[in-house]
């Protein structure tokens, strides 16, 4: 791991951490439920990006499966919550 790549991954991880805190503030403050659902979806995305960058930082392939799973679960959970807000139940 060169120092350039080490710096770049650390910078990206720091940016994601700060962005997650900002989104978390919106999630706590968010006036309506749909703000909170969108904030949770965005947090899932940040977690997925964390995994990919950690995979580059540690030069390891195993983080990729984790990132894929997080993306999948993020989609399922956000669409289920949106469906719940829209119809009052998830599976009709």
């Amino acid at each position: 791991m060169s120092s350039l790549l080490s710096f770049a991954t650390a910078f990206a991880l720091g940016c994601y951490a700060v962005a997650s805190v900002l989104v978390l503030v919106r999630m706590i403050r968010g006036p309506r439920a749909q703000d909170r659902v969108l904030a949770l979806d965005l947090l899932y995305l940040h977690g997925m990006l964390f995994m990919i960058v950690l995979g580059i930082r540690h030069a390891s392939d195993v983080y990729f499966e984790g990132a894929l799973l997080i993306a999948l679960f993020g989609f399922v959970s956000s669409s289920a919550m949106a469906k719940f807000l829209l119809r009052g139940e998830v599976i009709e």
Partner: protein
Amino acid sequence: MNGNVPFWAELMVALLLVLSGLFVIISAFGFLRLPDFFLRMHPPALAYTFGSWSVTVASILYFSMRQGRLVLHPWLIIILLSISVPVTTLLLARVALFRRRTAGVADTPAPLSQRGN
């Protein structure tokens, strides 16, 4: 397996990573600051497209250079995101519109089925 990554590839990977970090932080800042939900739906698109695309391209470039062959499986993440994100966003927009109608906010457009002509 442990091939050496040339400097130009490392530089490009580093640039893409820094770019994605900046895009993600800009999108989160906009998501925090904008006043209305329909305005707030837009900044996350920056993270969903530019943020994830640049990270994935960086990952493809780095692992391809490192293993000495074309490693394309990070592309799966982009494909999955480009299918799933529009569905979530559209559902959330419909949720916001529906709940606004239910709450009886004055200047909400009526459903298309109840509009004349």
